[in-house]
């Protein structure tokens, strides 16, 4: 359609987004720094919360603007393709974010821990950590081993986890939940494309429920880890990689589930047509991505 380029007029949304996200970041900074200095009377949480609320509000307004523009017929095919590209590469950037943490896990397991344990080409480092043996999961940290074998305490001794979470319990259930949710969201999509509104609603609701149940189990797992297993963020590099990978994944499940819930509401309001439903499609891509990350987690964090 030549000549029908879409050019939005000036907008206050981006500057609002900038202000909100900056306030959120500054709040987080103040909070964390004060916390580190043992300062309990910190303005950080308040500023952070204000920023967060503002971010959510801006997102709400921004997305509803986009939806309204779309319904008013302002979004031509070209702009819609831009949204498709945008979402696709946004997900790719998220993949790379997880790749950094998976890479760290790979590196400590295959290189640095064996070296610390005296194996391999850089095994000479073991000199500094006598008595340390490379194992994964890393139940005894190098500093613990040093203390146990020589009585010398390292400058900062880091304790390893007491126990770890076996893959065959909650993680296995969670895998099944999340994999089925990928299937249900696909069914929802098929139903939508077939014009089956009821099917769409039901399958999507099922997906969201599966997602939130997953998050619930994940929370239960964390409580268990902290209260009974002695597995925390601070228990060496096992705890660090475990919680950072599963934590960021959990956060993404939450975001994805919220996105899908909104899509459920939007569907109820009649926003989607069998051939026109990119908002839903984007959310479902995101959901599949979260699912794939989980498969990686289940394999490399829990099983192997």
């Amino acid at each position, binding site marked *: 359609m030549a*000549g*029908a*380029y*879409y*050019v939005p*007029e*000036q*907008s206050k*949304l*981006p*500057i609002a987004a900038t*202000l909100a*996200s*900056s306030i959120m*970041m*500054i709040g*987080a*900074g103040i909070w*964390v*720094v004060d916390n*580190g200095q043992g300062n309990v009377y910190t303005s950080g949480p308040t500023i952070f919360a204000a920023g967060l609320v503002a971010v959510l509000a801006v997102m709400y307004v921004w997305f509803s603007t986009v939806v309204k523009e779309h319904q008013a017929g*302002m979004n*031509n095919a070209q702009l819609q*393709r*831009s*949204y498709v*590209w*945008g979402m696709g*590469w946004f997900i*790719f*950037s*998220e*993949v*790379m*974010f997880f*790749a*950094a*943490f998976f*890479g*760290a896990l790979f*590196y*400590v397991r295959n290189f640095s821990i064996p070296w*610390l344990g005296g194996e*391999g*080409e850089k095994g000479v480092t073991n000199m500094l*950590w006598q008595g340390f043996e490379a194992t994964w999961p*890393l139940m005894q*940290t*190098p500093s613990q081993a040093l203390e146990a074998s020589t009585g010398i305490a*390292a*400058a*900062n*001794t880091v304790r*390893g986890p007491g126990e770890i979470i076996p893959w065959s319990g909650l993680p296995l259930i969670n895998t099944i939940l999340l994999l089925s949710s990928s299937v249900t969201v696909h069914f929802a999509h098929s139903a939508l494309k077939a014009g089956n509104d009821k099917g769409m609603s039901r399958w999507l609701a099922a997906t969201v429920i599966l997602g939130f149940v997953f998050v619930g189990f994940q929370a239960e797992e964390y409580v268990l880890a902290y209260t009974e297993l002695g597995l925390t*963020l*601070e228990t*060496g*590099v096992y705890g*660090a990689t475990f919680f*950072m990978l599963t934590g960021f994944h959990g956060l993404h499940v939450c975001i994805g589930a919220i996105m899908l819930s909104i899509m459920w509401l939007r569907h109820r309001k009649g926003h989607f047509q069998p051939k026109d439903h990119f908002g839903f499609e984007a959310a479902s891509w995101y959901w599949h991505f979260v699912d794939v990350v989980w498969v990686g987690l289940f394999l490399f964090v829990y099983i192997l």
Partner: protein
Amino acid sequence: MSAVIDTHGHEDHGPKRGFMRWVTTTNHKDIGAMYLWFSLAMFFVGGLFALIIRSELFQPGLQIVEPEFFNQMTTMHGLIMVFGAVMPAFVGLANWLIPVMIGGPDMALPRLNNWSFWLLPFSFTILLSTMFMEGGGPNYGWTFYAPLSTSYAPPSVTFFIFAMHLMGVSSILGSINIIATIFNMRAPGMTLMKMPMFVWSWLITSYLLVAVIPVLAGVITMMLMDINFGTSFFDAAGGGDPVLFQHVFWFFGHPEVYIMILPAFGIVSHIIPAFARKPLFGYSSMVYATSSIAFLSFIVWAHHMFTVGIPLVGELFFMYATMLIAVPTGVKVFNWITTMFRGSMTFETPMLFALAFVVLFTIGGFSGLMLAIAPADFQYHDTYFVVAHFHYVLVPGAIFAIFAAMYYWLPKMTGNMYPEWLGKLHFWLSFVGMNLTFFPMHFIGLAGMPRRIPDYNMQFADFNMVASVGAFAFGFTQLLFLAIVIITIRGGKKAEAKSWEGAEGLEWSLPSPAPYHTFATPPEVK
């Protein structure tokens, strides 16, 4: 916040006036201009820090600043120049030029574009404010190696991390926008292999950005956790490894240096043909060379870590992979030179900067090759030789290309020709100042002067003095650039639509200055 379908020509009415125009604008030319001004401002701030460093190093001994403050200066100079000056300048040029070059009406996602820009002033305000915090600002080098940036860092490091996160969001959104624009907004008939080289180079750069900025976000998140939440990513006591930091950082860091040079390659590939009045030699080989450089840049990161203790196979792999990059880079240099061969050349300011780029960037490439030789790097690493290397690729490389671009497209942006003699003066003063500053660093580096240290042995005194004189000359010359830009905006000889005799491309089919909205209807590209 209304949106319109732009079916009528917008050329007739301009933007709203006043400050809010700039805050709320969704126009790619406005946003491009803001990026460029922001970059220039940061260039001066970073330059000021550099001059503080060079003042201290004018003579051996400690005289002007405390070592602690010196560390903050080297760190902030690097961070500001990389993230505040060079990258935003290229993004600014991308914003201004890409839609015009591909015959599109604007960027694909204009509101997002505005957000990408405005995040920057905020994040840099946070970053600069850390210098006034208790314990001072970042003092761990622009590469912020752990544990210097974790266990031994001032408390402000947390704000540094959050500032970098905001910058990262800006870069990711910006590059997604550029990808969407290039794939989606091209005029009919503009196939990929007809795209101008600047557009190609930015397409590839955007991929590098979306791939590695999240990795930077990952590594600073690990730092944040190590510092504040007791994790042991970079702490061997808990099974982690400080070298892990370097791997993750340089996985981002090496592609990052190419993010700062690929758009420069693109710019030079416009300017040399224009002033040699010949089409670019080997267009498709340029495209493939740029793509291979981008690909290879992912598998060479550990050439920054030769001395840190990586296994022998690693040393060898990263050495050979790094040297491999010289091949596509050589292709590019060959093509630029061949473009000039038997051309009818003239030497206006953009061309002077572009020629200096080809010669001096190549010197930087050669010192890079020397550094890539792992056993030799044991001698060179962390000396001024490395400083000489990367300043040769970044100053006459990235920054000269930015100047070349500004002189080349300023007539299109402002509608006026800049005063040619002032442009030439700017070039020659920059050229002399820059070589005076950085060439001696090769010698003191080879002789063993370590980088990032405020004091040095007497034997290095003469060359350091020369470098400091050069730095002041180069630094103050840049005020001339500011003056030229202002003069050109305010008036001067009117520029024609096709401001340069040999210029090719859609942007020259538009009047100068280009109207506020261009290509409301797509042009036909044959």
